């Protein structure tokens, strides 16, 4: 039996763990944490074996499809792209689960926590494994609902319940776009098949979709006077879904609020499961994107913009977790940028982006878990109350600094010495340079470089404010338990070395996704169809460009050190409510006021909903009016009913007389 036959177990085991933990967890120690840990560990082993097998035999893509209903199917697809994602998700999720045993040990609803995280992991794994777009959407939604449950884990807190709702609704906007894309895709394929789909053909399967890209590209819709290809519309809608899930501007608003859940949940969301789904979606359907002339440009620009936009807010946040949240948004922007520049460099963009995704998962999970460790120990997440934590929690501090270095991208170009984040981020920035070179559009590159500088500043601001200097308040605290520090150390090792060790082969491996026997796409050909001309070669940039990411990273470190370590600059004037820029950033560009207070409450709720309610009362009024009129008419006609027989007799006589006359007249006329 090949290991691939066990692939279906990867999401199934955590799903079973969910059921078991949900019903039995309360009776077991630690809320039954052992069940999901064991399940995910098994999934991890299976994923790792499959990945290793794929590394040796790149052609052995696992595909299994079963008819579900109508022309839809459920199935499994494990190609290099899915395999690396599976391994990463199971691994990071496993570590987070182990860490959670210590972190959640004081919570009364532990079993619910572990059940929900198990389901969360299962949905994400199912999303990665999907061999068709509908199943992907289903898992996608399940991921969303699990995040809803987990962000609102402490539902007694109104803030948590609100944040959960906001997260679900904001991502739901993206989901609707994604669904619209699927609906349009379905109807297009339905038309391509002329409405008769042969038995055994599942039109939502990726290979089926990719096989019809030329026909899709040939279909045009007229929108506002512009001829737009259907594939552009579909991919834009798909990207809309990714924008929601991956927290890209302008649907990023839910991510910082999502910090209301336990810190481990934040780690799961930000590193392993949820936010990467959007990037994965674009990577998975990359053949469609590359055939869409304008979508990839949108992806690139929006990614670059989000990277810098979120970084500016990260600089001013005082909440430990919020800084990390904005950092995630910013890094996701990089990943999207990485995909967007596929317009210039083809399928390699997917490799770069996924590489960054995986490295990011390591160092971001590490950052969150470290932050969780600090919060767990000192009981606050306001950086202004912290300081000098490194003395109390040396392991946490050391691992967090490693994570920060990795996030900021420290490493020496041209060698294998460097943190994981360096290799992946550097590659994306260089890709952006190449993109600018081949297309003449330099904005993504500039934005990405500035964002790198800001990244370095905010993360070292966090480090200096939290771990160095003197304690600003009397917080107490101690180093965390081993069940928490061991996952930290493992992640720290990966954040340091994973990138360097795998950077050579990773890209090639993932790029095989599109050349294998399952889809067998010719990316350059598709790019030609979309109107791109792929750059011939990667890697002959000027030396300055190669060193640029490191230079800005070091510059950011120095700036942060000068301001927050040595305090040579007095920030009090700058950091005040009177400074409009600071105020704008601190209020997060007033997005809460705009999105929540204005659009949701004022326009949707008080505007539309109340308008519809008034209209509805109008309809009700009409219905009641009809009945009132009927009653009143009857009431007035009742007056004729005097009850005196003579009146009735008179009426009868008069009626008979009239009838006679009428009959007579009618007879005459006829």
């Amino acid at each position, binding site marked *: 039996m090949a290991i691939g036959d066990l692939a279906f177990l990867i999401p199934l085991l955590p799903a079973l763990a969910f059921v078991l933990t949900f019903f039995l967890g309360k009776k077991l120690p630690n809320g039954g944490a052992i069940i999901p840990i064991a399940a995910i560990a098994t999934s991890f082993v299976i994923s790792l074996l499959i990945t290793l097998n794929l590394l040796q035999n790149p052609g052995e893509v696992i595909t299994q499809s079963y008819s579900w209903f109508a022309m839809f199917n459920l199935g499994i697809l494990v190609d290099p792209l899915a395999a690396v994602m599976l391994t990463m998700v199971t691994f990071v999720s496993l570590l987070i689960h182990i860490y959670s045993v210590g972190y959640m040990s004081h919570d009364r609803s532990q079993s619910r926590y572990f059940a929900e995280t198990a389901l969360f992991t299962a949905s994400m794994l199912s999303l990665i494994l999907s061999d068709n777009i*509908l199943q992907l959407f*289903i898992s996608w*939604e399940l991921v969303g609902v699990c995040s809803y449950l987990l962000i609102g884990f402490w539902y007694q807190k109104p803030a948590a319940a609100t944040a959960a*709702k906001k997260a679900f*609704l904001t991502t739901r906007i993206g989901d609707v776009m994604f669904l619209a894309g699927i*609906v349009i895709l*379905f109807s297009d394929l339905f038309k391509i098949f002329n*409405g008769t789909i042969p038995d055994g053909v599942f039109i939502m399967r990726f290979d089926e979709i990719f096989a019809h890209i030329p026909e899709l590209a040939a279909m045009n819709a007229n929108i506002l006077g512009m001829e737009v290809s259907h594939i552009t519309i579909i991919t834009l809608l798909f990207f809309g879904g990714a924008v929601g899930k991956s927290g890209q501007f302008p649907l990023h608003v839910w991510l910082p609020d999502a910090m209301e859940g336990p810190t481990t949940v934040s780690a799961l969301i930000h590193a392993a499961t949820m936010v990467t789904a959007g990037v994965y979606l674009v990577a998975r359907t990359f053949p469609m994107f590359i055939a869409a002339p304008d979508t990839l440009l949108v992806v690139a620009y929006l990614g670059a913009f989000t990277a810098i936009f979120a970084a500016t807010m990260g600089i001013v946040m005082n909440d430990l977790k919020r800084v990390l949240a904005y950092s995630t948004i910013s890094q996701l922007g990089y990943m999207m940028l990485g995909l967007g520049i596929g317009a210039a460099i083809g399928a390699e963009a997917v490799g770069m982006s996924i590489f960054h995704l995986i490295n990011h998962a390591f160092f971001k999970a590490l950052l969150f878990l470290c932050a969780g460790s600090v919060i767990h120990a000192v009981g606050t997440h306001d950086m202004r109350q912290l300081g000098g934590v490194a003395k109390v929690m040396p392991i946490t501090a050391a691992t967090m600094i490693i994570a920060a270095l990795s996030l900021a991208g420290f490493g020496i170009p041209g060698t294998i010495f460097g943190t994981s984040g360096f290799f992946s981020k550097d590659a994306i920035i260089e890709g952006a340079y190449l993109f600018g070179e081949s297309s003449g559009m330099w904005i993504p590159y500039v934005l990405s470089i500035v964002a790198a500088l800001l990244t370095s500043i905010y993360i070292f601001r966090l480090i200096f404010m939290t771990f160095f200097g003197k304690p600003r308040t009397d917080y107490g605290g101690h180093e965390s338990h081993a069940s928490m520090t061991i996952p930290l150390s493992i992640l720290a090792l990966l954040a340091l070395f994973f990138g360097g060790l795998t950077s050579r082969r990773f890209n090639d491996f993932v790029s095989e996704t599109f050349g294998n026997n399952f889809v067998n796409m010719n990316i350059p050909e598709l790019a030609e169809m979309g109107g791109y001309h792929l750059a011939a070669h990667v890697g002959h940039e000027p030396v300055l460009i190669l060193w640029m990411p490191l230079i800005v990273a070091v510059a950011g470190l120095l700036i942060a050190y000068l301001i927050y370590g040595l305090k040579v600059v007095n920030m009090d004037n700058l950091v005040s409510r009177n400074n409009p820029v600071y105020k704008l950033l601190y209020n997060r560009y007033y997005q809460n006021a705009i999105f929540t207070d204005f659009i949701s409450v004022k326009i949707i709720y008080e505007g539309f909903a109340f308008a519809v309610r008034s209209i*509805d009362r109008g309809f009700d009024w009409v*219905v009641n009016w009809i009945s009132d009129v009927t009653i009143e008419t009857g009431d007035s006609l009742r007056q004729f009913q005097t009850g005196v027989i003579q009146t009735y007799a008179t009426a009868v006589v008069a009626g008979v007389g009239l009838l006679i006359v009428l009959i007579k007249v009618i007879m005459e006329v006829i």
Partner: protein
Amino acid sequence: MLPILSLIVLIPLIFAALTLLTKTKQQARAMALVATVAVLVLTMYMYFNFDSTIAENQFVEMYQWVPSLGITYHLGVDGIAMPLILLNAIVLPFLILFTWNDERKSPNRFYALILATEGAAIGVFAALDFFLFYIFWELTLIPLFFMVSIWGGPNKHHASIKFFIYTHVASLVMLLGIFGLYFAAWEATGTPSLDIPYLLSQFQFIESGLMKDMIVLALLFGFIVKLPVFPFHSWQPDAYTEAPTAGSVLFVMLKIGGYGIFKIVLPLLPFTASPGLMINILAAVGAISIIYGAFAALAQKDLKRMIAYSSVSHMGYVTLGAAGMVSLSVSGAMFQQFSHGLIMSVMFMASGVINSTAGTRIMNDLGGLAQRMPKLAVIMVLTFMASLGLPGLTGFIAEVSVLAGSFVNLPAYVIIALLAIVITAAYHLWALQRTMFGVFNEKLGTIVDINGYQTLSMGIIAILILYFGLNPSPVLDMMLTNSENIISLMAVMGV
């Protein structure tokens, strides 16, 4: 062979009469449970002997009744009726269990009315003769009227009379449509017949295009008021809200409006003088209902009223899917009826429990109930998720089939419907937040969780929601067969 359909229709009706004679609550509920379980057993037997690969009527029983007028006693089920009978048969025993320990006045009449509604509703689904169809159709009104006006809320008289008159007027218009069909066919062929399949096949031979349009419009009016969809929904929020919990559940079990559309209107549609117009009417009504119901639900303060409006929104998918004219969308619309019945019954049960324990349904006065009612919270979150169309639950299958299928022919309407999805999610989540989550409102006093009977009944229906969401084929296959049959008619006419 066993006259199984007659048994399924008559058992509840006979037991309803017998239940009236009982004296105590214990006897009445036992009687009701026996009857509903008997129906469930018979229906399961029928379901397992049902051939879902053919679109013909099965288990047919036919006897002459009034030959001079062409009235026959003709029963039979096809893939449109079978899932709805199944839905009624499944939910009703659990509804009885749900009310097992409730205290109310004259329980014998209460259970008798439940059984009468079940019998009448199944009668509508099983009838293959317009005479029987109309008798059962009107028969559903009476028990529900009394259900609302005896055990209803504070505004029960207004609501019950409004419901009765509104839907009765619609039924009369529908009756006019039936008469039109009956007499036109009588004139054309010379023999009177009220047989539904026969009349449906005779419709195309009616000469006057105007006549055909009027017939279909009259029938359609009767059906969409029963559904109900915008703009004929205004009886529904009142009736659903004022009805007792069991009454509300019976209301959502009563899928006769949608059934009529699939069974009677859709086969006629291609032969009308202006099928395009009809399709656009159906689709517009559906799309507007979806978004209108969603917004109206968002503005509600009463939990049950919100659920009632969400029902308007969900019913929009039925007409939109029916108008989609693709077998996927039509069967999705049929599945929406099935799924909506399951989901709404649990939602109404949940709101009934909240009302009876907390003493109010105004959402702003509730809050944090999940801390005191964890079992209810789990079930309620699950059903609310199903109602907002979460994948893996029945609502999603229906919605995605309707949306994807209808987009082929009606893109503009589907886009309107898509816009409503976010609103749908918003009001469901907001309702959950205000009732279940947040700080517990101490003013509510002591709150105890749902009892064993309630947990059992709601839990099992919730599990069914999950089961049919993951594996819709047991009911979706027969719907697909039938909708393909309908669509092939369209193809013949080139619509």
